[in-house]
């Protein structure tokens, strides 16, 4: 079965099993390895991408759901790493090991797209599904606030 997905702005025709999780398609078929495999059960958020702007866990989303739709991964968030969140992430030195950070940034980007000035409670609620085993939560929140232009 051919599946048509616009991935990071580029239209692609893919001949894959329609039940293949999008994460496998991204990493193994297309080589877009910025999106990570964490738990494989939609419990950790490491595999977060955007489907038509909505956060989804790619490890649990069959490829057929993306047919005819637009998918954005961390590689497509900005052409050169200049998204306000990516800049804030660097300035705040957010990552420790870094494994969860692509997912954290993708969820944060979806939040800011809908809530340009989120409260701390809204940040916590929206990122509650993105786990960081290094415990960088305070820096993640600070970077989101910085990207949103909220005073520290």
């Amino acid at each position, binding site marked *: 079965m051919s599946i048509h997905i616009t991935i990071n702005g580029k239209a692609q025709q893919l001949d894959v099993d329609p039940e293949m999780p999008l994460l496998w398609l991204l990493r193994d078929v297309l080589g877009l390895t910025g999106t990570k495999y964490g738990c494989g059960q939609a419990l950790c958020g490491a595999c977060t991408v955007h489907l038509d702007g909505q956060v989804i*866990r790619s490890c649990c989303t069959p490829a057929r759901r993306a047919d005819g739709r637009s998918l954005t991964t961390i590689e497509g968030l900005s052409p050169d790493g200049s998204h306000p969140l990516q800049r804030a992430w660097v300035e705040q030195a957010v990552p420790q090991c870094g494994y969860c950070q692509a997912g954290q940034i993708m969820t944060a980007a979806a939040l800011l797209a809908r809530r340009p000035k989120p409260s701390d409670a809204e940040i916590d609620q929206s990122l509650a599904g993105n786990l960081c085993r290094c415990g960088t939560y305070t820096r993640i929140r600070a970077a989101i606030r910085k990207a949103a232009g909220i005073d520290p």
Partner: protein
Amino acid sequence: MRARLETALLGARPLASALLSPLLASALLAGLLGAAGCQTPRAQNSATAPPVPLPVVPERELRAPDAFAVYSERAERSRALFGEASRVLLHARCVNCHPSGDVPLQRQGLLHDPPVLRGPDDRGVVGMECTSCHQDQNLELARVPGAPNWHLAPLSMAWAGRDARSVCEQIKDPARNGGKSLPQIVDHAQHDALVAWGWGPGSEREPAPGSQAQFGALVAAWVETGAECPAPGSVPTVPLGGVPALQRPRTESP
């Protein structure tokens, strides 16, 4: 973050009562049904017992509408039919997505994990939408349940912690049932794909009793007999050993 959400929830609904309620309801049922055996549906409501005992059915099965013909009085038959249907409505597979607060439940009335919130449209908050994880069908490889239009029932349709009468009144009220007529309620019970998930929940989840067809037949028979509601504080006609999830007698107004 997680602790804060749970703390907020504890303030929003009586979690301890909700979790204890199955035990209380089981004890209540044992007391009500134990003396007379499980053939007497005294627990159904304050109506008189039928002249002939209702058939005993296993915990995971439903009685057919015909079984309630033993009630000669139409209104009593209608109340008893709803009591039987409420064994589905008050089952964890149904109640978990009809929470009384802002957090859905899972398994046998536990809080949803990961921590998610109802959100403005009963479909989660940005970044944690229901369909961020749930698909249009069960995903066995990850044990994530799914069905078309996966979302929470609005607060006006909360069933967790309610009794059969309270749920009955809500279902009949167009202001709280999505503007549905009784025939539309029957159609919803018989054919809705999200309702159907209750009997095909996947993984190790316990399905609702009976089948959607049997449940739909009970709801149709309930409507045909006048759509009467059981008495306040009534509990479903569950055989001994049955567990009416989150069921407890009403002691205060909703």
